[in-house]
């Protein structure tokens, strides 16, 4: 069924009797052409685009828990394409362009809201680095502006300008950056995929892979064996676990990232802001909560929960930047498993096993990538060649020395 304002009014007047399930709960079939392992944002988007853009059918998404229950359901909802390196920027700009038409495309209001993102500058070296980055963005067709201290002050006069340990000297701004209602992205893709015949199978965990003569045959699951011509894995923090079923080790470590939301507040922050002198970034949701985060805890973890030091570190950054939030209350913390790669950049690639494809290594930046990740993974799976914006996301790039290291931190995942 198609959603619209008229439909909402009509249903309201008739007691909401007509709303249909947003997706079916089909039993798994014996075999599919495509199995996507992972019913998070990237997996659902892959299935959606496989069906819609690449004309494929007989597709299933296998999700061990509930749809959208991975990192798409526990992130800080930011979209942007303010990347530096050639391997990344075209991909994220492609993603941002997909966000810009997404809701009309899948007929679901995911509240894509381009209220702008600013990266604050506190040193001359940061200004140089952001100038390099802003120019790289512009060369790739993205928007970028450099703001002066006074321009920042005009936007947010209550930031700490006058008593700061690290004074604000300006900002790099991307006006097309912003936020999206994260759950709605998962649901919109899920609904769109379901409408196109994709089987979304929840509570179905992959427990093994059947590989014969170097070719994938299907997957063992908690709901039985399911055959497939092609299997794509998009399971974020569980990448190493799932790919181990194929005997593969990955250049990935799983780490915990915490995120935070305050109690609901009347409007304070319009856009997204990152503090350049501490580990803190923030936006305000449409419900009024300040949504913020900082660094990963820094140790390997699958626990989906973190510890106090990072909570304190993030709060310190917040108070250093915004002295007025001392009495704003932190409402909830949460933790997700980040598939931290060795250079901080992701993978969308084939594997040495024919018919087995891998999408992962998104670190803590996978949400903004969701549409392009789905599109490019679907492209790769359908055509067996990478999408033109995702050619650098190869698993062998470390062997070849073609790292995509935005932060210049080297082969240590917890520093990216």
């Amino acid at each position, binding site marked *: 069924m198609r959603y619209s304002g008229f439909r909402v009014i009509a249903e309201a007047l008739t007691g909401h009797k007509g709303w249909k399930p947003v997706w079916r709960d089909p039993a798994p079939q014996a075999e599919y052409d495509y199995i996507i392992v992972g019913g998070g944002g990237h997996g659902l988007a892959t299935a959606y685009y496989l069906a819609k853009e690449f004309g494929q059918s007989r597709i299933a998404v296998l999700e061990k828990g509930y749809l959208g229950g991975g990192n798409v359901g526990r992130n800080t909802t930011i979209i942007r394409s303010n990347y530096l390196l050639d391997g990344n920027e075209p991909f994220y700009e492609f993603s941002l362009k997909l966000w810009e038409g997404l809701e009309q495309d899948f007929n679901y209001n995911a509240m894509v809201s381009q209220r702008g993102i600013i990266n604050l500058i506190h040193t001359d070296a940061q200004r140089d680095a952001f100038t390099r980055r802003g120019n790289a963005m512009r060369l790739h067709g993205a928007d970028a502006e450099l703001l002066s201290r006074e321009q920042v002050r005009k936007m947010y006069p209550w930031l700490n300008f006058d008593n700061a340990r690290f004074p604000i000297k300006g900002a790099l701004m991307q006006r097309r950056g912003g936020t999206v209602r994260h759950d709605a992205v998962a649901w919109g893709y899920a609904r769109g995929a379901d409408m196109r015949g994709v089987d979304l199978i929840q509570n179905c965990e992959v427990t093994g892979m059947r590989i014969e003569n170097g070719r994938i045959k299907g997957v063992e699951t908690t709901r039985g064996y399911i055959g497939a011509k092609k299997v794509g894995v998009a399971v974020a923090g569980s990448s190493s676990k799932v790919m181990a079923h194929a005997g593969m080790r990955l250049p990935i470590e799983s780490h915990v990232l915490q995120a935070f939301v305050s109690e609901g507040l009347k409007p304070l922050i319009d856009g997204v802001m990152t503090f350049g002198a501490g580990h803190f970034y923030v936006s305000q949701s449409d419900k009024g909560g300040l949504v913020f985060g900082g660094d990963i805890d820094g140790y390997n973890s699958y626990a989906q929960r973190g510890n106090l030091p990072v909570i304190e570190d993030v709060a310190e950054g917040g108070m250093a930047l915004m002295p007025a939030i001392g009495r704003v209350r932190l409402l*909830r913390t949460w933790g997700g498993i980040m598939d931290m790669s060795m250079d901080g950049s992701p993978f969308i690639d084939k594997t040495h096993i024919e018919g087995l494809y891998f999408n992962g290594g998104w670190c803590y930046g996978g949400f903004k990538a969701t549409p392009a990740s789905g599109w490019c993974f679907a492209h790769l799976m359908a055509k067996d060649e990478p999408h033109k914006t995702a050619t650098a996301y190869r698993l062998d790039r470390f062997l070849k020395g073609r790292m995509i290291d935005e932060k210049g931190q080297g082969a240590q995942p917890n520093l990216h």
Partner: protein
Amino acid sequence: MSQSHRIPGGQIDRTKTFRFTFDGLPYTGHPGDTLASALLANGVRLMGRSFKYHRPRGPISAGSEEPNALVELRSGGRQEPNTRATVAELFDGLTANSQNRWPSLRFDAMAINDRLNAFFAAGFYYKTFMWPKSFWEKLYEPIIRRAAGLGSVTREEDPDAYDKGFLHCELLVIGAGPAGLMAALTAGRVGRRVILADEDFRMGGRLNAETVAVGGVPGADWAAAVVTELSAMPNVRLLSRTTVIGAFDHGIYGAVERVSDHLPVPPAGKPRQILWRIYTRRAILSGGATERPIAFENNDRPGIMLAGALRAYANRWAVKVGERVAVFTNNDDGLRTATDLQARGVDVVAVIDSREGGEMLSGVRHLRGAQVIDTAGRLGLKAITVRQANGATETIAVDALGVSGGWNPNVNIHSHHRSRPVWDAGIAAFIPGPEGPPGLLVAGAAAGLLSTHAALRSGRDAALAALELTSGPDLPEAEDAPVRITPLWHVSHGKGRAWIDQQNDVTVKDVKLAKQENFTSVEHLKRYTTLGMATDQGKTGNVIGLAIMAELTGRSIPETGTTIYRPPYTPVAMGALAGRSRGKEFKPYRLTPSHHWAREQGAVFVEVGNWLRTQWVPKPGETEWRQSVDREVLATRRSVGICDVTTLGKIDIQGTDAGAFLDRVYANTFSTLPVGKCRYGLMLREDGIVFDDGTTARMGEHEYVMTTTTANAVTVFRHLEFCRQCLWPEMDVQLISTTEAWAQFSVAGPNARKLLEKVVDQDISDAAFPYMGAGNITVCGGLRARLFRISFSGELAYEIAVPTRYGDALLREMLARGAEFDPVVYGTEALGVMRVEKGHVAGGELNGQSTALNMGLGKMVSRKKDSIGMVLSQREGLTDPDGYRLVGVKPVDPNGKLTAGSHFLEKGAAAVAANDGGWLTSKVYSPHLGHDIALGYLKAGDRKIGQRMRAVNLLTGQDTEVEIVSPHFFDPEGERLRG
């Protein structure tokens, strides 16, 4: 206004009267009151508005689970949004205002949403506002954002201080109700170190709200006596007004003590709040239980509250919420409310008991098998409609209704490690599961043991188990009533709305819609309807919502499951989590030895990591920074300049294998370096990218001194220790960081030697101390020092180091004794100008993405020995002959301007990524050359020397024709170095 609803008794101090205001109107209360109890005592039930429908709201609880009675407390920089009136302790002069209403609480224009509620069903916004596309950001969303939120935030800085501290104990007891008090007593009496934390300002938990007897005295009196006994024990620390917010790994608990929130302002020298990190091997969660309501039509009117809260207000705070009260219950505990209220002279007009049969209460109209099906009263409850067992309906005029749907153990903290609670059908509630945080036991109502006796017993037993004791105090006598409950989650009647989440306005209908649309997972239910996402995190409503979903889907409640419990237990002020790390105290300052001298001169400082370095030192008459910097550069190159370079990392490396060790950690060779000489060293990461650079000197046969960049001082040392301990443990080599032990100055310029000769005791002539010489010397008649003849500026230059405490003196001495050379002290800007003039790499080039080859230093990576990064530096992607190379850049027109971060484009090339040739890494104005110069990474740059290109900054429109030149702008032959 008088305290019209105050009744006799209670735990308030009537000898003192507090004055306070709510929405500008004056009221009075007493010590011991909360804002909610005081307002109720004054007959005020309406305290807020709900989030979505702006429905009138009064308190439903008497504790921290409150979803409704949220106010803005205080004003100015202390304005606190969303403060729960039910836990805000009253003080004299308190001011509070209602929130999320316009123009007033009684008449709220946004209540139009309530009339339009049919259009605002769960998730309606996902289905509309999509056309036309631009309207979302321009029209719909701004309206939604303006309406969002509850309380408002001040823009002023919070004037109060917050502290943090560590506490250690053998047993942490969380919650000071009967179970917690008994646990603390058991451990305290045998001398164990105990911390007892309770969120309330009065310990005792429900004993303060009940009329039960413990050991033959009123429960509240027993609690007070235990608290008195505990407070006399030196091994017991009582933390009232302290909420344990979370259980973290390895027995670390976070707790927030509200030191001064019950006072108008914090006393001098006291913080507002303290974040405690409590370290303990054992802990007992005795945090009690939270009552839950029953959903029925229009169950959200002010005056309708939890039955336990109704009697808490009567028993503890001496407040009758209404003149005519009814109780609606599905369990025996609700009956207690009727009994207690009646005993206090409150008119209980009916008890509506959903259970069939059973005993009847005497002296009150007890309707069995009955349900409340609707209510009336716009701004407060006026009447309820009751459907009796025989189906007859009756409207009863009441102004207060207590509702009890049973009690949910407060399992939150036990579930903070993601263990799921388990269903206990006996009490119709979730209780802690078998797997909780290691070392955390559960006692009392938190464990689902709801009688006073069971709480006392389990508290004692938990302490015995935790501390491996065999016997504890005798248990005082107390009631041990069984839990008799017949679950009733919602009343099936009519078409109206029955609230589950009163703050977010989630009703039974919304749960049904979620089911209809297949959002049946409990997480989907939460996320789609926003159930439990309000400031109370669903403490009263969540279980009802999932029970209804269970009913709709035919699954059991345990199959349906709960959402995840996350810290903090109740919301925590950001200030408390940040503590003192704010403003200028956000990070510590590291000051250089010359800092005081520089401050005396009016120097301008710059933040470099945590260091504060001299950026330049203006002279009188200099109005623009470039004047000072140009002067410093020219004076150095003309005569002599001094720069404090103490911030560079210094590492002493000693041992018989020190040279061999350096060969492995540096790309180039050091074991061949003669004693008394320095060498430039290039250090790679294992991935072949340049990590750091600096000079290392051989001070003796087995003794080297390494310098690192300022930025990498810590990480290089860490890396060297890794190499030493983990990779080559057999090597005889020892390391120590001496960054803070030595003050170090660069002395550069044609007169550098002459100036140093004024302070150095030894012969430092070119013959005695040649270029790249290094050695231990003395200065000023015997002070030990180190001298290195190295240059970053391209001049004849030295770095001289003395013990840090002599740094200031050495600087003053050099300036005084060398006055004839007119020495200048230069800062980081002049340092940067001279190093770019010389083509030395620094921060902009050492970006963690560049190889030795990129920097034109490829030949330094020796293949004759194994060193960190040597192998992987040979990967094809890092050895591309067309890759980036370091070049010098100058504007073709000397007036042309350059900007670091600009990108290279060929002349006439479009500004697109395909034409991107690289970027300018560092730019300075060279006073020596009289124009801007820059360094940059240019693709195949080594083959483009002499070519003309453009340096383009698309962010400002700057587009400058440049010539690619050697990075060595100044004295390329290095003649001055050797002077």
